[in-house]
């Protein structure tokens, strides 16, 4: 009896709510450093802050043991050029990564300098990062001395927008004879998150699981003032939480499924889980923090519930070295992210086009397959068990395949390339770089507020979240040590309390899913592939209508649905910020995946700049920053981290 319907059938009535209901009751917590979001970035922030001997509180919407996009696991520790097997200089690698327009040079520099240190610390905490069991002796990239498993990814080619092979290839002055770059390490990431939680506990970090943070508190409740705490809702008991802090690290990631929700397959609506609903960005926005790159979106490519689940089809990322063949076994010219093609991540547009045309001409027969049997045994195991077996949300996939009798030694795994068709261009994804603006301390534009991981603009991957979280925690602690006491504004708390509990005061009206679908529709409709001033303005109007007419109808029958309803209000605000940001950019841009019908010229030089956006006394204020506003990456990093001792310095 595991479904609710079964219970109903057997008991004749629904079960009582299993947790004590404490709507409206208050709990107040005081701390030096408050970390919001217990994912990869948040845990690392809490740990490095705690190591400085300060009191740390970590608040997580789910349970820290497995929460966050990286909670289930991680197979690639990307961009660790400071590792001993690397053949490139970290600063040069960082500079190369920063050649990509609209990236975050600060975060990249931190990642390249500190990624390897972070990984070693991970190992000290009990995370597995080497082939200690000697399972993969003989696998290409395995270093028999350190037992590190180097991934083929980026070994030579490392390009975000590959137009042709040559543009992807790059000779580094630190690697003149073009040895393999060796900057990506294969890791046993399923061991990471539990180890992080354990370490938090060991260091005395106070963890509040199942608490959704709903707003930031600012000095005297003034927008733009120093951040002095936050409010939260326990999503099982409905209890109200008030956190008081000297400094705060925001690490709740960006927002997913703003353009699309499959109401029943809701968990599929994005590569991120439902929990990632933009709460952090929105609470920072309301507090007056400055955001940037919010206008950048991409086509929602994968896993909307209308497509195959990400990683269940051969050819998705992590399928290193797996040749893709057509229905008749003919090998396709797709890159296999392996040693032979130097770890290229995605096919060049030319190749993609050639394959599509080949299919139409009958040159390649659908469907395609991942040809595991064609691989050498050790490489096959390395991909199937180590890569797929350790990556986020995919361990369960290979377990399921194995249970179902799939045998990579004998079986071709179906690929969904082409057969499942393309996503509608109006289904888009915000997960393309919008976020909090930060400085070289990963401090936001508000005093006392720091950011880590995908909470920042233009973020990268798992190891990036880890190293920037670790860095932000360090800096937040330094600030907290010198920061004076601060008072929270009761009035601000009461206002938030009224907002939070409104939906439980109703027992009918509009439920959270319909509201979410309505927001998604407005976005598909007005803030989609093709934009114009009038459409975007109508989009704002439509969203405002939803805010004025539908949000007041939201009803929630229990604390869980209350949390979902509040998430929708975050998504709604997030959608409004995106639309505002899009209005501000009066030019089309390729790297931002941004088309304006009324400004069709692609990337006119005058518009090659970051646009920033924030609230000031309730008014939207936009600004601009040069594309490399962070200055000289190497010098700035060293100027801000004189006291930092890491592997790189020792080298």
């Amino acid at each position: 009896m595991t479904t609710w319907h079964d219970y109903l059938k057997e008991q004749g009535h629904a079960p009582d709510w299993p947790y004590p209901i404490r709507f409206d009751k208050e709990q107040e917590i005081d701390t030096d450093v408050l970390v919001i979001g217990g994912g990869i970035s948040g845990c690392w922030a809490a740990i490095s802050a705690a190591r400085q001997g300060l009191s740390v509180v970590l608040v997580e919407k789910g349970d820290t043991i497995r929460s966050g996009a990286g909670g289930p696991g991680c197979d690639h520790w990307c961009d660790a050029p400071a590792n001993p097997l690397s053949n490139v200089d970290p600063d040069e690698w960082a500079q190369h990564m920063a050649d990509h327009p609209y990236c975050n040079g600060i975060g990249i520099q931190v990642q390249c300098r500190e990624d390897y240190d972070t990984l070693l610390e991970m190992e000290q905490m009990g995370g597995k990062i080497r082939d200690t069991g000697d399972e993969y002796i003989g696998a290409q990239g395995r270093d028999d001395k350190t037992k590190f498993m180097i991934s083929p990814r980026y070994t030579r080619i490392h390009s975000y927008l590959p137009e042709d092979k040559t543009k992807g290839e790059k000779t580094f002055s630190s690697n003149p004879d073009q040895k393999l770059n060796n900057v990506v390490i294969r890791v046993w990431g399923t061991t990471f998150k539990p180890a992080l939680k354990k370490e938090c506990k060991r260091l005395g970090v106070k963890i509040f699981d199942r608490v959704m943070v709903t707003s930031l508190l600012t000095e005297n409740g003034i927008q733009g003032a120093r951040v002095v705490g936050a409010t939260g809702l326990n999503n099982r008991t409905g209890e109200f939480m008030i956190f008081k802090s000297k400094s705060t690290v925001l690490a709740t990631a960006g927002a997913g499924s703003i353009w699309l929700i499959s109401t029943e397959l809701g968990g599929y609506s994005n590569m991120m889980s439902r929990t990632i609903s933009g709460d952090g960005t929105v609470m920072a926005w309301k507090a007056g923090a400055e955001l940037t790159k919010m206008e950048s979106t991409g086509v929602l490519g994968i896993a909307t519930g209308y497509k195959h689940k990400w990683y269940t089809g051969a050819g998705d990322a992590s399928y290193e070295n797996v040749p893709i063949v057509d229905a008749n076994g003919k090998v396709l010219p797709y890159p296999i992210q392996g040693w032979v093609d130097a770890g290229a991540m995605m096919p060049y547009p030319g190749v993609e086009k050639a394959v599509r045309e080949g299919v139409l001409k009958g040159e390649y027969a659908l469907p395609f397959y991942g040809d595991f049997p064609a691989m050498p045994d050790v490489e096959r195991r390395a991909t199937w068990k180590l890569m797929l077996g350790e990556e986020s949300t995919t361990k369960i996939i290979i377990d399921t395949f194995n249970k179902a009798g799939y045998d990579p030694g004998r079986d071709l795994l179906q690929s969904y390339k082409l057969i499942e068709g393309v996503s509608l261009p109006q289904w888009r994804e915000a997960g393309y770089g919008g976020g909090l603006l930060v400085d070289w301390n990963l401090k936001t534009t508000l005093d006392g507020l720091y950011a880590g991981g995908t909470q920042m603009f233009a973020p990268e991957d798992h190891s990036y979240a880890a190293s920037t979280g670790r860095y932000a925690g360090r800096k937040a602690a330094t600030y907290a040590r010198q920061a004076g006491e601060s008072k929270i504004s009761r009035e601000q708390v009461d206002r938030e309390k009224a907002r939070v509990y409104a939906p439980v005061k109703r027992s009918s009206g509009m439920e959270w899913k319909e509201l979410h679908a309505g927001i998604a529709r407005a976005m598909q409709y007005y803030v989609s592939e093709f934009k114009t001033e009038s459409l975007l303005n109508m989009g704002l109007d439509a969203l405002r209508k939803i805010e004025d007419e539908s949000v007041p109808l939201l009803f929630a029958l229990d604390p869980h649905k209350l949390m979902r309803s509040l998430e929708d209000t975050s998504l709604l605000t997030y959608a409004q910020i995106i639309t505002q940001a899009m209005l501000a950019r009066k030019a089309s841009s390729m790297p931002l995946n941004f088309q304006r019908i009324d400004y069709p010229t692609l990337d006119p030089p005058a518009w090659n700049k970051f646009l920033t956006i924030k609230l000031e006394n309730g008014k939207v204020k936009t600004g601009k920053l040069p594309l490399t506003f962070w200055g000289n990456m190497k010098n700035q990093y060293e100027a801000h981290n004189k006291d930092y001792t890491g592997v790189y310095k020792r080298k």
Partner: protein
Amino acid sequence: MSQEKVIAIPNISTPNSPVIFNESICNGCNHCVEVCQIDVYIPHPQKGKPPITLHPEECWYCGCCVNDCPRPGAITFNWPLQQRGYWKNKATGEVHQI
């Protein structure tokens, strides 16, 4: 704060209220139950009460239940949020949504 007992129930399906009943006008004649082609409604166990909307997400919005209701006003239609169309007043330029 809502004082009623909290019970554990799944998420409400979407849309969950294709129509809204006006209890003061509806006399529970169940005519809508009869004209509905897909049994979105079932009769309320208590005589005289508006029917229960048991399968809201199966509604295809043909409107027959509203059109044929013998007591006008007892049922009003309620499109799901994501399907509500817009119009614009030609003179004032105001935009309205259903």
